């Protein structure tokens, strides 16, 4: 216990938390740049670091970025990250009434509360799930991988076919390199740089960061303006008791955030929307939502930050990312030689407890930085895009080079940048791609083991009760959004006389 506390409060580790949260808030606040982008860009900075320090940096970025999206949501009516999509509804009207400071303080306090509650959930549930997971066999792990991808595809809503295609592509890219079971080469095309596969870090940098550079460059050229019009930040006058008046909303939103975050493949955006909708439904004054209600900011911000600890539950216990942002963390862990999964807990090492404990401090750091520097962060969203794009490109190129100190990964990053740009422009969701990419090897090896166990019969996945249950959940998570979108499409058809384009 003492060792854990000493590591958590070590000066370098605290510094990494501060830097990570600061970078996360700034990047999260900039419209168009999201948490996945922030973690991808900061990932190369961790290569030379100790594993704990690097995780604190990236977790700080994750938590800070999730909160940071609310700054642009409130001040410029554009969510900085998808997780802040529901904060716009009441945050911006509040700012229009001259209460931007109140909205930002509410968002910060709510984010802090959601984050801390999710830390407790992580601390309590993760060891329990890890001990259950040691009893999981290959069929259960394969089914969990399928569930993770199905949930990510299901989130794509009305684009399940596109989501499935992206998931297949992610799995396909994960097969490049040497087959760990048979030792044969796969899709190397004679290139020895691909012996260990395509670097997932280079792919993530390309798909999220470089694609963003291309998109912003094209938009900036066409629009030829880079001024961001934003409402003025006003000093906050709201008291804490006015925010904590909605403690029930905070609790319920935290629960939604934790449940949604713990389901592989989902994320902060879903939690935020669900928390907002439920808060409005249960509210005694639902008519106030959308007009600048404090409760309308409390609910989504608590919900989205409550996912931050919860998404680590499946990651640390099962090795399956809770959402696409955390999928990038797997890249960081891989670079550090750490394999997430039940063995982290079973080995008796205190590493995982240092990570879980550190998340508490990250949330405290986020609260402190938010309280003292929100005005500075609010001004930073006005950074011109013309400065931003070449800077991001520099970071991408240097980051890709840092992976293995060779230029091959830069080319990989660039190609995946083009890949990400083309598919994003055509409305293909990237979350299933990235989750499939990180789960690919785990999925294939467990599929192989399962079929060996069952002498080639796929029935093993449905005859084992836990595996069957997980597959049923996977089908539900895939089918429910599709059924919902078909019902909405039929409503549209009745109104318009045909499917919409």
């Amino acid at each position, binding site marked *: 216990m003492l060792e854990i506390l000493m590591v958590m409060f070590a000066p370098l580790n605290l510094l990494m938390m501060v830097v990570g949260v600061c970078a996360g808030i700034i990047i999260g606040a900039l419209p168009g740049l999201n948490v996945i982008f922030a973690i991808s860009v900061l990932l190369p900075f961790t290569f030379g670091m100790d594993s704990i320090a690097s995780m604190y940096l990236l977790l700080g970025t994750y938590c800070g970025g999730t909160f940071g999206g609310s700054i642009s949501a409130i001040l410029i009516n554009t969510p900085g990250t998808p997780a802040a999509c529901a904060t716009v509804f009441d945050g911006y009207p509040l700012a229009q009434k001259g209460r931007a400071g109140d909205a930002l303080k509410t968002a910060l306090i709510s984010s802090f509360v959601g984050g801390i509650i999710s830390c407790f959930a992580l601390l309590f549930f993760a060891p329990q799930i890890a001990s259950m997971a040691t009893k999981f066999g290959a069929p259960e792990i394969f089914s969990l991988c399928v569930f993770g991808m199905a949930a990510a595809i299901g989130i794509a809503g009305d684009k399940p076919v596109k989501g499935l295609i992206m998931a297949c592509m992610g799995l396909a890219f994960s*097969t490049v390199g040497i087959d760990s079971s048979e030792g044969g080469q796969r899709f190397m095309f004679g290139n020895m740089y691909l012996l260990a596969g395509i670097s997932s870090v280079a792919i993530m940098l390309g798909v999220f960061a470089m694609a963003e550079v*291309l998109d912003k460059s094209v938009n900036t050229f066409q629009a030829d303006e880079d001024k961001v019009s934003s409402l003025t930040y006003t000093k906050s006058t709201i008291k804490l008791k006015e925010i904590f008046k909605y403690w029930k909303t905070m609790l319920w939103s935290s629960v939604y955030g934790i449940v949604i975050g713990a389901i592989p493949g989902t994320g902060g955006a879903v939690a935020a929307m669900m928390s907002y909708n439920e808060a409005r439904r249960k509210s005694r004054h639902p008519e106030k939502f959308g007009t600048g209600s404090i409760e309308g900011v409390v609910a989504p911000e608590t919900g989205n930050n409550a996912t931050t600890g919860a998404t680590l539950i499946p990651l640390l216990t099962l090795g399956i990312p809770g959402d696409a942002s955390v999928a990038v963390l797997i890249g960081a862990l891989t670079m550090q030689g750490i394999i997430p999964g039940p063995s982290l807990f079973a080995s008796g090492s205190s590493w995982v407890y240092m990570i879980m404990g550190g998340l508490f401090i990250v949330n405290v750091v986020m609260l402190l930085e938010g309280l003292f520097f929100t005005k500075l962060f609010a001004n930073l969203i006005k950074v011109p895009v013309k*400065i931003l794009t070449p800077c991001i490109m520099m970071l991408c190129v240097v980051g890709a080079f*840092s992976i293995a100190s060779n230029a091959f990964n830069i080319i990989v990053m660039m190609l995946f940048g083009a890949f990400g740009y083309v598919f994003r422009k*055509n409305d293909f969701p990237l979350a299933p791609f990235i989750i499939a990419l990180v789960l690919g090897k785990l999925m294939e090896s467990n599929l192989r083991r399962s079929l060996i166990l069952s002498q080639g019969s796929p029935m093993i996945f449905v005859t084992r009760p836990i595996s069957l249950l997980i597959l049923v959940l996977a089908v539900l998570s895939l089918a429910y959004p599709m059924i919902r979108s078909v019902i909405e499409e039929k409503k549209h058809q009745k109104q318009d006389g045909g499917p919409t384009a």
Partner: protein
Amino acid sequence: MKQLKKDMVLYIILVIISLLFYFVAIPQQIPLRSSWSGDITFTSRTFPYLLFFVMGVAALIGIVQTVIKIRWVTQPEEQQGIKDILQNILLPVYFFLLAIGYAMMFDRFGYAIATAIMIPVYLVSLKCKKWYYYAITYGVGITVFVVFKFLLNIPL
């Protein structure tokens, strides 16, 4: 309607890629070895075959869905000028080539020279006229160099 046409083109390309990988790339790129697992036929090729099969089927379903949606579209398509079409295609290609050029210079001459050349070229391409934008970007470039080379010991 424009998006539906783009979707159709992409789905067709994906079907072709799936077929190419299924029938050509997988047999060529993945040698078959005798499996240590005896009778079980799960080889190095099994998973890739499964993936490209599913991808091909999904793309075919996408084509069918798109055809159905196109038949029901009632809104007239907005006609785009040749200039707009060229801009939408050539602009991303131009910026992509700039980025590739930066990467090649980085490999050949190192970070410092590559960045020193890239920054003004990129900013001019973005029609940037304010001198302090260039100064700030160079400042960021120098900071990145210092952090990666001296703090993280990455040989730039």
